[in-house]
């Protein structure tokens, strides 16, 4: 078990990261500190709130409501990362809901895990959480690429290409950027990464074989969720930036 002192010690390593970002003028010192504080508060609240939710005597509807909350929070997070994209909240909500429906549907529809509060909340959290990260990268990279590569996209539009066709190359590149880390993580599973769920299960006393199967099932669903989320959000971002006159809204370069 990790005590408060040990938790504090882990922050020392983060200070190195903050110093590094400051030295390189990345402007990420404050976001890292905000992320640390938010994670601390959120995990404390979630830890307390999860106890009654995952209690076997608590009706499952509360777990489902928790999942809806995760979808909402993830959608707002995605939309806030690319505020220049109008209506991105609806795109993100659609993508996150799609991932939740297909991911959770696969896991419980095929009986990979028993449908209980103690599995539903963490499993949905892992699937949607990883998908959220990919959706953020998908939305921001597509928006950035359309700003950075505007000359190429407009050259295509001027030839009579549809916005989808004119931006195909830059959008593909953005989506690869969003999806590739999860592919690498899946490919490096067990060799480079010993992921959290497996580690947790082993630490909790489960057999390594059970832990491996559980982790693999989760990783496969997460990989699919990431691809769905990044693609839906990236293409949705392009659609939201397309005008009725088949042009791309002007965006400032970051």
């Amino acid at each position, binding site marked *: 078990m990790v005590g408060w002192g040990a938790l504090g010690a882990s922050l020392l390593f983060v200070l190195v990261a903050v110093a590094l970002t400051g030295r390189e003028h990345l402007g990420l010192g404050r976001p890292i500190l905000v992320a640390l504080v938010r994670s601390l508060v959120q995990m404390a609240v979630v830890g307390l709130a999860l106890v009654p939710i995952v209690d076997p005597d608590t009706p499952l509807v509360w777990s489902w409501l928790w999942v809806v909350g995760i979808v909402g929070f993830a959608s707002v997070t995605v939309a806030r990362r690319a505020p220049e994209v109008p209506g991105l909240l609806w795109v993100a909500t659609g993508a996150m809901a799609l991932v939740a429906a297909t991911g959770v549907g696969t896991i419980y529809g095929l009986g990979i895990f028993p449908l209980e509060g103690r599995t539903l909340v963490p499993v949905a959290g892992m699937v949607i959480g990883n998908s959220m990260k990919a959706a953020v990268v998908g939305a921001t990279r597509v928006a950035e690429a359309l700003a950075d590569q505007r*000359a*190429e996209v*407009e*050259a*295509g*539009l*001027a*030839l*009579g*290409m*549809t916005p989808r066709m004119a931006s195909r*190359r830059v959008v593909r590149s953005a989506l690869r950027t969003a999806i590739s880390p999860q592919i690498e993580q899946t490919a490096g599973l067990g060799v480079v990464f010993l992921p959290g769920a497996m580690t947790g299960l082993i630490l909790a006393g489960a057999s390594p074989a059970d832990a491996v199967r559980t982790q693999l099932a989760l990783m496969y669903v997460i990989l699919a969720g990431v691809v769905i989320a990044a693609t839906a959000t990236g293409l949705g971002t392009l659609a939201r930036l397309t*005008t009725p*006159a*088949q*042009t791309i809204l*002007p965006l400032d370069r970051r």
Partner: protein
Amino acid sequence: MVPPLFALEGVSVSRRGTNVLCDVDLTIVDAGITVLVGASGAGKSTLLRCLNRLECPDAGTIRFRDDPLDDLDPLDHRRRVAMVFQGPTPFPGTVVDNLRAVTPDLTDDDACRALHQVGLDPTLLERSADALSGGEAQRLVLARALTTGPEVLLADEATSSLDATATHRMEELARSLADDGMPVLWVTHDLAQAQRLADQLVVTRAGAVTWSGPAADPGAEGAVRNALRDGAPW
């Protein structure tokens, strides 16, 4: 009576509260080379982009051969009204990939003819577009634009990044296209180039059209001098 190529009435465009085009009324004749001349920031490029529908006016109407642009399908309109930009914008891939970007069924013979039309050697077909010189790349972009069989060519400072030889070739191409019946609208802030090319002249200043008419008109000189205060004499 032949309708004008483009007719603009009360066209205004603003960006972030700044007027880029202010209440522009303009008629562009359906023949020869019309040169839009003005200092940087005078609204020339925005005007050209509106004609290709890459940009939509905030107010006013634009007609293309009597048809309001708003009534035309934008993708179809852009194939009829080709546009080349300031910097060469070849797509990644080979020269022939570029030529087939919007006309995938273009045969090798058609591709060779397209290159020949712009004065490029057909042996360049399989070369990477990124390996072309600036002048070659701009001519490739022009050849690519011509593959859709456009009726009009818009050129937005198309030679500003080219050397004198490449600029001369592009001007010859524009003249050749115009002489073959394709009206050309050519944007420049280069007075000498405007003198060389213009059959008709449109002078812009601070988002407004201050003068338009035949380049040989005696009033052209004063209008251009006013618009380009630091320019050479007309």
